[in-house]
């Protein structure tokens, strides 16, 4: 499988960065933690490292070029066979002669894009070309913003779209993106193939809030059958992770918990998410940031019980529950999210999820949470409550955001997106009023000032 290297956010205000130098050439072996390229913004240079062992398969943006934050600028694969495959797919962008100069008008570039794809695939039928041209025109009409990323013949697609396309054998250069600046989204790939795809079942809450588009639901739940680890009539032993979860859940029975819920309107959050999504921001990072910022003003909700008294952690570390495909769950921790900007936080989260799947997390990366989030929004659930993990004082259950008829204060009625959240807390350290005022402020932040979550 291939892993994208993204243009990193060196600061919360940075929108694009310049690639100063590639320290590795395509085909070179890279080790996890090894610097692959240098990115510059203002008077600062940052070494960008590889998150895994493997090979640099493709350089998608050459040295000297500028790319928006979150843009895929290179690809790393795990072995050499995959490298050949990726290099074949990215032939277009690897050949510098095919590049149009930056000053050329985008129209010419669009046409050159078609030409290039024609050249690279001799089996292309002429019919497809004319269709592609038509699509380009439609696509150009719908564009209102001057495209930033379409200035070259490069295919602009979201990481997920690339992944799905490579799984399904879809040629991205033939697709029209519905995303910002014509970026190809996962949905575009699914649409062209006319069928939902199945990906590893993992509770990444990217699509949690804003479940307006029903097409999104099947991605995690394509078959009507639920998860099962055994066959009918069989008893399957618990795996280590399941045993650990069981132990934690049983110990929670000794904790006097209470629950308090709140309905949060998410229209503003959803539209803010839409604007930052193209920079690689995930919904999980947004929610974690909102929770962490609110916890800062409500230290009681970040506290936990000890026999000696109420213990207040030095830091706010937000754990997020992630279901594992083969049973059990794990809670990767985003440490001190108040100190990290949204873009970096999103990248940290993606890295944690990726390494959770590969079971490569260090203990301090899943055991240092001071507050936990559990998000089942992606399944469309309207409410649930969570069980408190030991050693913490509270956990927040987040349900889907759904269009809801709301009666306004002045008696009028409107339809707003509403998400129910439910806090489970240890009453020995957190009281009803603490939980309620925490939720009130969290709702206020999400409803009125989601843009403040950026830094």
């Amino acid at each position: 499988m291939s892993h994208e290297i993204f243009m990193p956010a060196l600061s919360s205000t940075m929108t694009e960065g310049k690639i100063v130098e590639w320290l590795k050439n395509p085909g070179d072996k890279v080790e996890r933690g090894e610097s692959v390229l240098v990115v510059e913004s203002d008077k600062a240079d940052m070494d960008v490292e590889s998150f895994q062992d493997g090979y640099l398969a493709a350089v998608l943006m050459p040295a000297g070029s500028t790319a928006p934050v979150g843009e895929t600028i290179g690809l790393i694969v795990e072995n050499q066979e995959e490298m050949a495959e990726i290099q074949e797919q990215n032939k277009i962008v690897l050949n510098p002669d095919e590049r149009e100069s930056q000053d050329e008008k985008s129209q010419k570039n669009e046409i050159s894009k078609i030409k290039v794809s024609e050249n690279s695939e001799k089996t292309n039928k002429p019919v497809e070309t004319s269709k592609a041209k038509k699509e380009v025109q439609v696509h150009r009409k719908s564009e209102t913003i001057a495209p930033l990323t379409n200035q070259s013949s490069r295919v602009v697609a979201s990481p997920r779209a690339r992944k799905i396309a490579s799984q399904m054998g879809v040629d991205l250069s033939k697709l029209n993106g519905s995303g910002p600046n014509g970026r190809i989204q996962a949905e575009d790939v699914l649409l062209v193939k006319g069928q939902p795809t199945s990906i590893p079942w993992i509770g990444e809450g990217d699509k949690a809030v804003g479940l307006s588009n029903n097409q999104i639901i099947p991605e995690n739940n394509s078959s009507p059958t639920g998860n099962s680890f055994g066959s009918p009539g069989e008893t399957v032993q618990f795996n280590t992770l399941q045993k650990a979860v069981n132990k934690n859940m049983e110990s929670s029975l000794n904790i006097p918990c209470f629950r308090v819920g709140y309905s949060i309107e998410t229209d503003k959050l959803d539209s803010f998410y839409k604007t930052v999504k193209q920079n690689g921001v995930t919904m999980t990072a947004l929610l974690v940031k909102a929770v962490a910022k609110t916890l800062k003003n409500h230290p009681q909700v970040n506290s936990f019980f000890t026999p000696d008294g109420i213990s207040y952690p030095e830091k706010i570390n937000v754990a997020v529950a992630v279901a594992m495909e083969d049973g059990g769950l794990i809670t990767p921790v985003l440490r001190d999210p108040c100190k990290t900007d949204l873009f970096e936080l999103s990248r940290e989260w993606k890295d944690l999820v990726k390494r959770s799947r590969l079971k490569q997390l260090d203990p301090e990366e899943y055991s240092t949470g001071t507050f936990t989030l559990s998000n089942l929004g992606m399944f469309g659930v309207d409410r649930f409550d969570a069980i408190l993990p030991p050693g913490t004082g509270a956990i927040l259950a987040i349900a889907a955001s759904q269009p809801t008829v709301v009666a306004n204060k002045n008696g009028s009625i409107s339809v707003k997106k509403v998400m129910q959240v439910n806090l489970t807390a240890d009453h020995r350290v957190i009281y009803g009023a603490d939980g309620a005022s925490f939720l009130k402020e969290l709702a206020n932040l999400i409803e009125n000032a989601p843009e403040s979550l950026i830094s």
Partner: protein
Amino acid sequence: MDKRTSIINEPHKISHFEDIFRLQEEYQRNLIDHKSDLQFTWIGEHNLCYTIGKGGNRKNLLNLSKNNVFTINRGGEVTCHMPGQLVIYLILDLNSYKKDLDWYLRKLEKVIISILSHFDIKGKTIPGLTGVWCGDKKIASIGIGCKRWITLHGFAINVDCDLENFNQIIPCGIKECQMTRISDFNKNININEVKKIVKKIIQKEFNLKFVSK
């Protein structure tokens, strides 16, 4: 060990650029590899040399012979170091401050402005042109590198150096960029006095506990 602890190194003799560069990289490496929690602060002067960031435009070197030009892993264009100019390197772990290089650059500007104000010199920033200026002349330059949020390099303040050396290059890639120095405003200043203030302000602004090696 407290994360906010830093080794302080302030040699009295003039140092060669390469020696200190290697020293910086060593401290950065140790922090990255978690071999040490000690950050590193260096305050000193260099022999005449020119440095340029990897992304810097070679044209700004003009006709300079390439012998004493170092291409280094910091951001920014060409600059010049020499005796009489105070160079400050900070190997800090931004993981324990703020993982934001813009924040760090702005913080360094603030540090420089406080240092200058101590000598009754009014420094200012110009949006888009990192560094500190007195009127339309530049008095301090900034250039940093970073790996896993551990910083490298830092800033340089002209105290009583020979500004002629800057005429060999286009400093910071800004044409018509004129340089100035503390001694143009206050003739009686001694570089050791500036060092003391630099140390004090860095300690305060970055909340550091200095230890000698």
